[in-house]
């Protein structure tokens, strides 16, 4: 009951913070401009260099990976930045701890807002890809069941990774403000979002193969396009991919909650819950 209420109120609060600074029109522009600009960077890179430009066989895989990667940055940032913002900007974190709410549910609720916004951005990107760039994704060929299950498992895993980063934010200075963004940027390299992990040096390939995100993007590509990217993961069946996602989600849940508890205790010991480091 307390968790549900915490989740619900945190989601409402997150939505108010994210949206009530602008008119609906301005907010719509804001929500569309960023993801489309990110997609166009990739488009132009392909147009300038790749043989065949947007007809390059890799392009649809890369576009879909890039589109769904929006979730990674926004969810990781949304959950981890909630700690920094509430502590440094609003000075409310200590009151969050004093209030009768479940902190984990509170953080997940803040992440839920970002996930909702990310969903809109991803859909805009996919429609942009289909309508403007001509990426073939006929509804009849999409594996909707696999798409939904993979999406759900991956999103849950991301939320728990966000909890983990929130724990780090709790015990670091304001540099941690960008931790979600920075980690998302690092994962961008390793998880095959915008190129097959086959092109990475072998040690980095191994790191990539250890990341749940790699399998998440592979599953989404197979569901939408009928095919994944690269050779390394092609030997895994759809069922195995989904099992990997489910298992990693459970593991991340356990590890993230345990780590956050440890960080919380450390923050209490060192008096970091209400520290101010913005200068």
């Amino acid at each position: 009951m307390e968790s549900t209420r915490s989740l619900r109120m945190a989601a409402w609060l997150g939505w108010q913070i994210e949206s009530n600074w602008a008119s609906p029109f301005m907010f719509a522009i804001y929500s569309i401009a960023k993801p489309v600009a990110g997609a166009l960077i990739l488009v132009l890179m392909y147009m300038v260099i790749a043989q065949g430009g947007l007809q390059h066989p890799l392009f649809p895989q890369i576009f879909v990976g890039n589109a769904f990667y929006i979730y990674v940055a926004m969810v990781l940032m949304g959950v981890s930045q909630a700690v920094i913002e509430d502590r440094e900007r609003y000075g409310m974190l200590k009151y969050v701890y004093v209030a009768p709410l479940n902190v984990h549910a509170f953080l997940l609720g803040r992440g839920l807002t970002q996930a909702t916004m990310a969903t809109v951005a991803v859909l805009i990107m996919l429609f942009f890809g289909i309508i403007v760039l001509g990426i073939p994704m006929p509804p009849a060929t999409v594996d909707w069941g696999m798409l939904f299950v993979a999406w759900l498992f991956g999103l849950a895993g991301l939320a728990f990774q966000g909890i983990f980063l929130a724990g780090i934010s709790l015990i670091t200075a304001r540099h941690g403000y960008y931790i979600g963004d920075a980690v998302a940027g690092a994962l961008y390299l390793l998880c095959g979002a915008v190129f097959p992990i086959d092109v990475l040096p072998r040690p980095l390939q191994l790191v990539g193969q250890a990341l749940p995100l790699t399998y998440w993007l592979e599953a989404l590509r197979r569901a939408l396009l009928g095919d994944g990217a690269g050779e390394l993961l092609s030997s895994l069946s759809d069922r195995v991919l989904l099992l990997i996602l489910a298992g990693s989600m459970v593991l991340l849940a356990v590890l993230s909650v345990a780590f956050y508890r440890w960080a919380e205790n450390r923050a209490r010991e060192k008096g970091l819950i209400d520290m101010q480091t913005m200068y």
Partner: protein
Amino acid sequence: MSSPSRWEIFRRTVMGRAYPRVVGMQRERSWLFFDTLLPLLQVSAFVFIYRAIQAPPEFTGFVVLGGAMTAYWLNVLWSMAAQFYWEKETGNLELYIIAPTSLMAILLGMAIGGMVGTTVRAAAVITLGLLIFRIEVSIVSVPQLLGVFLLTLLALYGLGMLFSSLFLLYGRQASHLSNLLQEPVFLVSGFYFPVRALGFIPALGASVIPITLGLDAMRQLLFPTMMAQFRFLDVRIELGALAVLSIGFLWLARRALSYMEALSRREGRLTIRGQ
């Protein structure tokens, strides 16, 4: 004891505002990881995109240079443009207003401190990028390269000072607008690809952002052979344009600051928090 002169107060204000950004930011060692290693990983992603599509090796250099320059743009957005909003929220802005100094000196101190602090980070990213990816550069002219770099920074932070002035009026819109100006500017300024790929007219429009011209000129001076087919304007024209932008933005920042401060006082927005 005689009072310090106006210029002495100005100087002390600049140094005082620059000090936390140069010294204080280095005290938390976490910046070594968050501000250098992680951005380098992000840059590496773009390097591998180009490798996956078999781009010429010079494009690796383009990406590393562009990636390093993103540090400056992000610093302008978050440590300049949105800073007065932040100061308003923490209650420092009214202290700045009643202090016997000018807001221009405070902005200048923020700019200088930001430039120095960010240069450390950008230099680390470039150095590591050059070493890890074994990028070969052919510097055409060191004085021109330094001139382009310094003028780019001057114009960029002049723009940052202008943004600071404009954002004085804003509430929470300030941080969201700063957020909005990330990816679209990375796109139109050609951070990760030659800006000429956008077409001449769009690139010309994007030249109002100093990094557009600065990046193009630096790439021409570091990778002259490849940039011969991708250059936007001649380096000398870009140098001249950057000089004009520097002067223009600094002048506009001064005018905007006076106007916005007066407007904010009239509308009572200088001390509003949680807008």
